[in-house]
């Protein structure tokens, strides 16, 4: 099936925004700089808005998005994505406003918890809508796991990039690198699980996407770079680690989403055959 780029970019950008805000929320509990939280929140909200803009480009007309919004309670895959997009936007905006206008810690921490939950859910459910019986190569929970994992890895490296630009070494009590490595591991597990579900033969039909995008950049490079952040002894500048990690994780995220579309076969795709009558390969 043809790659639906608006959907690929929507899920990765919005998922990255959600994961980035999950890291902002975590910093409320593990310790971090206010400047990083402020910048992280603004970047996160920008990413989910940008992702939302890409999603409407998939529709016949962007104005049709209004119809989807007015039918939220259909609880289809798209409506769940929309609900989570809205919930993330509201929580992120509320978090920014509360932090600006109040010194109370409880509301901020409540919003941080909500942000962590909604942010991670957004990454997962952007992939969960594709788990349908009619598409055998999508019909596995490993697909939303790959969506979540790659979004999480991108969010972690992006948070690290913001820390490198605006923060200090005490972010997450000095353990940010460990959390970034953890996010990269979740991303790698998601990618390996989905490729294993697809089967190496089917996935290899898209050799460049699989070996170049998913394996080399999405798994190996992302893990190595996040490992350098923890075990590298500070030899490599933090900004270099995080930016290069972000690029690799982002390409890995694009690659697995592209692989999903390219390997889609349909259960019985009767109309893929042209008229006049053709012989099926049976």
């Amino acid at each position, binding site marked *: 099936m043809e790659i639906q780029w608006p959907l690929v970019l929507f899920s990765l950008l919005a998922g990255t925004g959600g994961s980035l805000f999950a890291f902002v929320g975590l910093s409320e509990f593990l310790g971090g700089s206010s400047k990083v939280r402020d910048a992280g929140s603004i970047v996160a909200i920008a990413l989910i808005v940008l992702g939302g803009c890409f999603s409407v480009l998939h529709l016949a007309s962007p104005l049709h998005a209004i119809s989807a919004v007015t039918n939220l309670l259909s609880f289809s895959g798209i409506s769940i994505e929309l609900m989570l997009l809205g919930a993330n936007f509201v929580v992120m905006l509320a978090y920014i406003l509360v932090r600006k206008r109040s010194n109370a810690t409880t509301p901020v921490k409540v919003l941080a918890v909500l942000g962590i939950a909604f942010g991670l859910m957004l990454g997962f459910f952007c992939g969960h809508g594709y788990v349908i019986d009619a598409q055998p190569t999508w019909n596995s929970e490993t697909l939303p796991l790959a969506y979540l994992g790659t979004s999480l890895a991108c969010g972690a490296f992006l948070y690290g990039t913001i820390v490198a630009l605006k923060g200090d070494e005490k972010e997450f009590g000095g353990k940010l690198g460990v959390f970034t490595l953890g996010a990269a591991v979740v991303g790698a597990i998601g990618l390996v699980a989905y490729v294993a579900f697809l089967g190496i033969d089917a996935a290899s039909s898209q050799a460049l996407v699989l070996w170049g995008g998913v394996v080399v950049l999405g798994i190996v490079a992302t893990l190595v770079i996040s490992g350098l952040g923890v075990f590298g002894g500070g030899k490599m500048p933090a900004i270099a680690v995080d930016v290069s990690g972000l690029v690799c994780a982002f390409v890995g995220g694009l690659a697995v989403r592209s692989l999903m579309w390219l390997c889609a076969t349909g259960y019985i795709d009767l109309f893929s055959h042209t*008229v006049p009558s053709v012989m099926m390969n049976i």
Partner: protein
Amino acid sequence: MAYGLLINLDRCSGCDSCIVACKLENDLPLGHFYNKVIALGPTGTFPNVEKYWLPSQCQQCRNPQCVAVCPTGASYRDEKTGYVLIDREKCIGCRYCMYACPYGVREFNEEQGCVQKCTLCSQITADGSGVPACVHNCNCGARFFGDFDDPESDVCKEMAKYPPEAIHSLPDPGDSQPVTRYILSPKFASWKELV
């Protein structure tokens, strides 16, 4: 009610008249179809070879997956007739229903910005007075239209002439419960499951 098509493959000659009739009745532009005819075979080794044609279109499922995923309610099943239809005014062109249809029998109309498919010629049949154009124009008398829940309907009466092993439906991966039935007697060819 569960209105739908019964297609007797023992009689289908693969002439494609149903495709032409459908395109004319529904004013479908070049390259667009609500139905297609697929040749299955020939299979086997001479002299024991066989082949049959499989006219394919929306299977009018009782539990349609296209309806379940539609974010706007544009895809719906009319509970009175069992027709699975698309409200073009509500369709936003997200194409989710196309991904969710197990049989790949929907298509996207770029010009109109909406998904389209077989409607059982509801413009003719909704009031119960007529039959779909593909049924009316079938040269071989292979196509039947009616209510599968009514033993006196054309489809049930035709099915009653055949043993159970000659009556088939497309494989159902997710409890979609397709209504459309095909008759193919083993003496003509063995039914292929396609998956």
